[in-house]
């Protein structure tokens, strides 16, 4: 378990940043990290990782502190059902739902897009990489690490209370561990 005491703090040209160990975000938990001044929530929903900006595009609420729920749908009253495959993050301020995978707002799915920019939440790419690979990428500047002074916090999945400051001293990488790497370009851009 070799931990280098003085991590390189390079910015990756690709906007890739190591933000946490995988074990820091167990299933059905979340972590809010501050990367380059921007708060981003990393979610582990049923074993899959998602990253979304901690700012609701509606009125600026702390989006990443809301409930995660499945999609409720019905063709008509009396036929209510749950689509568990689609997960929404709901803003704690006004309850707007956003697809946690795409950031797509869901309150008005049947209407054509408005002329103004779509009020989708910012979402980001997130991947898991092992320490050995990251070591080389760090050396070549292909990936950065989260600022150790970053305000990062667990959010209790039930009460949504922030559990305490994240300890940034886990960085840099441990060859034998797995890490969560955030890509600051939006996931939409990276999908293309």
């Amino acid at each position: 378990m070799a931990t280098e005491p003085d991590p390189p703090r390079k910015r990756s040209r690709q906007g890739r940043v190591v933000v946490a160990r995988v074990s820091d975000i167990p299933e059905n938990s979340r972590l809010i990290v501050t990367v380059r001044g921007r708060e981003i929530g990393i979610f582990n929903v049923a074993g899959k990782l998602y990253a979304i900006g901690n700012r609701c595009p509606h009125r600026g609420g702390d989006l990443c502190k809301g409930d995660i729920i499945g999609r409720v749908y019905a063709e008509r009253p009396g036929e209510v059902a749950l689509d568990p495959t689609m997960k929404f993050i709901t803003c704690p301020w006004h309850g707007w739902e956003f697809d946690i995978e795409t950031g797509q707002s869901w309150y008005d799915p049947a209407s054509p897009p408005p002329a103004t920019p779509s009020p989708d939440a910012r979402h980001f790419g997130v991947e898991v990489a092992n320490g050995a690979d990251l070591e080389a990428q760090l050396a070549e500047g292909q990936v950065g690490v989260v600022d150790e002074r970053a305000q990062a916090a667990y959010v209790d999945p039930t009460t949504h209370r922030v559990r305490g400051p994240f300890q940034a001293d886990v960085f840099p990488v441990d060859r034998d561990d797995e890490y969560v790497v955030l890509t600051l370009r939006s996931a939409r851009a990276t999908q293309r």
Partner: protein
Amino acid sequence: MSPTLHPLRAPSELWDGPIVDVDVHVEVPGVEVLRPYLAPVWRQYVDERGWSQPFGTFPYPRNSPASARPEWRPDDGRAPASELSLIQEHILDRGGVEHAILNCLFPIDSGPPDLSVALARAVNDWLVAEWLDADPRLRASIVLPARNDPAAVAAEIDRVGGHPGFVQALLPVRSGMLYGKRLYWPVFEAIERNDLVAGIHWGGSNEGLPPTPSGWPTRYIEEYVSEIQVFESQLINMVAEGLFQKFPALRVSMLEIGFTWVPMWLWDMDRNWKGIRREVPWISRPPFQIVRDHVRFSTAPLDADRSEELEHVLRWLGSDDMVLYASDYPHMHDDDLTVILEAMGEESRAKLMADNARAWYRLDPAETMADGD
């Protein structure tokens, strides 16, 4: 004599085309006119008890000026709007009126439920025989028995709903339970099945239901103005309960309450729906859009005095299909149609005065033209 588009107090350069009047009242003058249409058992009931009319029958009190225009009140003591000749003289023969829809508010909600059913049948058969069959310009709303027996209500809709003169079923707005509730599904199912409109109309007959959730107001002016909130509650409930997803062909008219209140309530509903959509997941588009497709509003009473103000409201409605002209005969609301005709703009006036109602109530102008009036 140049045709006076009565009861319009509008200069004819604003509108001299056809008129469909969607809210014309007809008054049952007394139980004696219904006797021929009552089953023998109910004739005996009425005779034995000396039963003359339901409690709470709306009598157009002489000293309540808004209840009836003075010129529409017969001098000989007959009730206003109680005979075909009165409505012909005051509405149908004044020029331009292509169709008028009769709304009879005979209050038959209380008393024994079987009497309520018998009275509803009698009134509807009386409407057919002495009004609809007597003048092709007339259409009518079905008078329904007490709402606390939805099966009986649906049965009466099915019994007479096939008559081409009936275009609507009349539901008083003060209903005791909001109309979107599932208890009423059989009623709306029957309305949809018979291709009728559900007409939500001012009033609550004699069930003793106040127009505010906090009980009875003190004065007439309060009741007159407070009624809007009952309509608002009904509209919001019908949308929220998914009535228009359950019955996708359902058409609802809100009668004798105007329309200026509609936009702000639906803005509020649209806004809040965005955050609590999952509570009403059958609503998959903004509620205001649903209302634009499924609900219409009659003009009277026209609670705006200035056309420039009304222009805003009409623009906020987001559609010129939603408002239907109504005289609300024989009431006197002092509506000045100049205000709404100016506010509508020339291109929309035909919609207001006739086209919207023709489309909504499936009226064919040729049916009355053929009679050569």
